[in-house]
């Protein structure tokens, strides 16, 4: 154990942990919102995130080609915004597709939740594998040469050709905070603030809360619950797309199975904070990111995931409904 290492690098570990946690939190929102209205874990949400990471990289490939380059955040700002929008739209489209194909037909027939869960797992595998055979798909259409920059070696790691060089801005303790750290944390918090305002202040936001708190009463108020479910998936997708963009900004590479571990972590964050609770997802995500970073400093990086899940188990032992969670059937969303 290396507690001395932890204390020496406490600022660095905390800030990079917050950046990672902010990404977890954005993805966790999708899990928690869908759970809030459907009492269902959307296991395909990890693929919503994964498609966003590819969309982000593809924008760079499209504009830049595949020759690697290394640039600062400032000089690529326009491209970054474009790629962020592409990632958000792609993820939102995938989320809507999942709702339409894997959920709505089952919900219409009042299928048991377990069936919908299996359907979601199926959708998750399908989407992930589809990304893994995208070279074959392109070949069917005879496009493998035209699209080779996007589809070749479909099962390998796919990198954004432009590496973003973080620039140090100011120093806390002995860690120099970079512009990338700030953008990741700031953008994630801004997205979450916007979502919080949307849910609290707008008509559709109220509709989402109403369906979460009492679906039958919501129908009696004239809420179109099919539309509300759609909007919830849409928002979850937009948030996961933003998370994907921030992830690519920080990590730079993705893969057809990149959603899996991140999805499990985000789901953990959602449960940790109290599933169904938006602020809980934020708290759970940030806490998980920081504790994971501290834990890997103390026990070694290999122990990172062990630390994360031990934390989950410990908190659930003390508070089975999560940090900000309330008993089911009480206030949600």
């Amino acid at each position, binding site marked *: 154990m290396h507690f001395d290492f932890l204390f020496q690098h406490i600022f660095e570990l905390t800030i990079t942990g917050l950046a990672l946690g902010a990404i977890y939190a954005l993805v966790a929102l999708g899990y928690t919102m869908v759970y809030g209205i459907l009492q269902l874990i959307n296991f395909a949400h990890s693929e919503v995130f994964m498609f966003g990471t590819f969309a982000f990289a593809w924008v760079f490939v499209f504009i830049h080609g595949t020759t690697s380059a290394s640039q600062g955040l400032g000089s690529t700002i326009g491209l970054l915004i474009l790629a962020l929008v592409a990632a958000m739209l792609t993820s939102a489209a995938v989320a809507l597709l999942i709702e339409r194909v894997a959920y709505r037909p089952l919900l219409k027939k009042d299928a048991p939740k377990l069936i919908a869960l299996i359907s979601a797992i199926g959708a998750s595998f399908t989407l992930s594998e589809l990304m893994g055979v995208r070279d074959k798909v392109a070949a069917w259409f005879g496009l493998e040469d035209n699209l080779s920059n996007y589809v070749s070696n479909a099962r390998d790691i796919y990198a954004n050709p432009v590496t973003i060089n973080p620039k140090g801005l100011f120093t806390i303790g002995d860690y120099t905070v970079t512009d990338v750290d700030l953008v990741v944390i700031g953008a994630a918090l801004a997205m979450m603030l916007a979502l919080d305002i949307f849910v609290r202040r707008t008509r559709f936001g109220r509709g989402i809360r109403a369906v979460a708190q*009492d679906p039958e009463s919501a129908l009696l108020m*004239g809420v179109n619950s099919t539309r509300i479910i759609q909007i919830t998936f849409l928002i979850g997708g937009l948030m996961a797309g933003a998370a994907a963009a921030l992830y690519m900004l920080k990590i730079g590479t993705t893969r057809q199975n990149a959603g899996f571990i991140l999805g499990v972590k985000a789901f953990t964050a959602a449960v940790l904070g109290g599933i169904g609770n938006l602020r809980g997802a934020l708290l759970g995500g940030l806490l998980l990111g920081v504790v994971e970073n501290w834990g890997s400093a103390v026990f070694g990086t290999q122990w990172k995931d062990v630390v994360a899940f031990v934390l989950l188990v410990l908190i659930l032992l003390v508070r089975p409904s999560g940090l900000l969670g309330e008993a089911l059937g009480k206030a949600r969303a």
Partner: protein
Amino acid sequence: MLLEVEGLCVNYGHIEAIRNISFGVAEGEVTTLIGANGAGKTTTLKTISGLRKVREGKIVFDGKDITRLAPYDRVKLGISQSPEGRGCFPGMTVRENLDMGAYVRTDRKTPAYREDVERVFQLFPRLEERVNQTAGTMSGGEQQMLAIGRALMARPRLVLLDEPSMGLAPRLIQQIFTIISEINQQGTTVLLVEQNAAQALRRAHQAHVLETGEIVRSGTGEELSGDPSVRAAYLGGDV
């Protein structure tokens, strides 16, 4: 008739919850359905609101067949409901709950809307005192007031009230029924479902008795109050 129910049959799985019931609700009146637990009263209201599928028969509102209409379209046409067990949104404040009642309205920022909120507060001054309190923390009586007030916020032509007196203290029951009459006098048609038959019959213009999914007796509130078999079954014998 503002609302006409014709030969309605509704199933829960293979169990017939409602069998071939027909009745009408005249505009401007209070109509009540009374009957024991499990007679099908709540199912009837849920079906009128579109929450239960109709197996046979039809529902006509203001001359329009609404049997297959989505629940939210029925609210837009002017049917709102205060459900059994109140169904307040527990995590929302009183004001947010009232806003939810007006979900289908587009005039949220207008004086007309504020007037409607005022009207609810006049009927239930307690709600104004608790305007920023979350519904989940309020007493049963207060939640009942909120549920009725919320149903009125849709500016309904027909309001369906499911067991508004359930679980309330006797003094409060009296008050709730007085307010129901007041709502009716202000021009809203009321369809009231009650186990408290004495009170319901006193307030109702028309009344129907439901037994195991069928209407077994109909008449004016006065007629049924005087009917020996109704008295024996629902009014505690010769009171």
